[in-house]
């Protein structure tokens, strides 16, 4: 098999106060995969992705990105390869205009001139934000901000795009736009979410993490069909779906038996 884009072996991580955030994580993500990382709040999802781009360093175990270990001398290249889109786009869009923001990453990689322009134009086109180039980020809609922050990451031509809760605060139309954008991007993707339906819509494979451990890894449809597994890890499908599947209406009195 080819070298995985992300290879994590025996990763442990504890915060300075002793809180164990990750325990014995093994995870492989291969080129072209689209994987959902599911888990309740506080499960360690964000901590795990911050290991992938070297913001956190492995205390035990190893993290490798396309064969390159996450170590101090490799950091710039690691951060080029792993593009993280954070949850709040206001944290990510810090330059005065959209174009300058999309340019930020490639410029840090040392690109200039025509190469830079080409990179930025391609990234903006892939997320359909080219018409926003000269706008200030503060006055974009939330969905636009989300797509622009993704363009800023795509401009680094990452090998894997990591999105932290990409659907939070999006209205249904923007959510649909995001889905189309993600499905249209030719890049390996890891989508951190607790939106199970979104995982099903976009990701063929899901990994469930709870209390810092990977508790399940398999086809999304199979994991979501396992009600016991979901309940054990504080994940639940929307009530409407359960209703369609034949569950009783919670607002109707149970039929009386005389």
């Amino acid at each position: 098999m080819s070298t995985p884009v992300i290879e994590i072996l025996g990763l442990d991580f504890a915060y300075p106060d002793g809180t164990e955030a990750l325990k014995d994580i093994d995870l492989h993500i291969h080129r072209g995969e689209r994987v959902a990382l599911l888990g309740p709040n506080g499960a360690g999802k964000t901590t795990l992705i911050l290991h992938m781009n070297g913001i956190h360093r492995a205390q035990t175990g190893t993290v490798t990105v396309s064969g390159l270990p996450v170590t101090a001398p490799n950091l710039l290249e690691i951060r080029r390869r792993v593009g993280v889109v954070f949850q709040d786009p206001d944290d990510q869009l810090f330059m005065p205009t959209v174009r300058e923001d999309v340019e930020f990453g490639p410029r840090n990689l040392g690109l200039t001139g025509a190469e830079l322009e080409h990179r930025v134009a391609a990234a903006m086109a892939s997320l359909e934000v080219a018409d926003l180039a000269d706008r200030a980020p503060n006055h974009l809609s939330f969905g636009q901000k989300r797509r622009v922050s993704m363009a800023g990451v795509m401009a680094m031509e990452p090998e894997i795009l990591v999105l932290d809760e990409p659907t939070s605060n999006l209205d249904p139309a923007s959510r649909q736009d995001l889905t189309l954008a993600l499905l249209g991007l030719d890049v390996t993707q890891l989508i951190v979410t607790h939106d199970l339906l979104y995982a099903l819509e976009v990701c063929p494979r899901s990994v469930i993490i709870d209390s810092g451990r990977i508790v399940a890894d398999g086809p999304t449809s199979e994991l979501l069909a396992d009600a016991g597994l979901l309940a054990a890890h504080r994940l639940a499908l929307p009530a409407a779906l359960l209703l369609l599947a034949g569950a009783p209406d919670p607002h109707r009195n149970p039929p009386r038996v005389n």
Partner: protein
Amino acid sequence: MSSSHRHALFVHAHSPVHRLSPQVKIAAALIMLGAIVSTPRETVWAFVCYGLALGILVALTQIPIRFLLGRMLVLTPFALLALLFPVFGTDPKVEILGISLSEQGLWDMWNLLAKAGLGLVTAILLGASTEIADLLRGFDSLRAPRLVTAILGFMVRYIDVVVGDLNRMRLALASRGHQGTSIAHWGPYGRAMGTMFIRTYERGERVYLAMESRGYAGEMPASSRVKATPGEWAIALVVVAAFWAVAITARMTT
């Protein structure tokens, strides 16, 4: 939405002044200020010249007079202070409308009002014809320290976000029945400000994390410098030279 992504000091128009490169406007404005400030206060004619020249520039820039006057209100506290100079100034006194006023004080008042007023019009001209992002690029092109322009850029970028946070917090206070009518009600405001500080600090950390994730290694990347043409510099030179010609003549005639 058409105008809301511009700053409050900006006037949308397609004037020749708007079209000038930002660094040309910034340099010209600073040098013009130098001329105005260094003009001896007794040469009233020189200030009239500056006023006329700035008037022409205001007209060229298509700044509405109401907008200009509104922006000039920031001068009010200084003007009020200046009004006190003639009253409390030293002898000799002159009699104007039956009030005995200090001659020295009158000159001080004139000096402050004329220079601050003309200086303010110059600054308004610059602000009204240049968007913030262009101003930052202009300062960059003039080789202002990148750290300083970066900090200014962050300030501009996040001021709306922070004000939004603050408004939501005020709304939350009001929605749970808080009234800020007396000083006794100010406690929650103080705590809200404390919370704001912590939230802003945390946002700063998250922004830094996002910067690091996109390869930031301690230095802001150079922005694409906007090139100003020699023609633009020549136009600016003419205006600036006119101001300094007046200033130098005024200095030599006193």
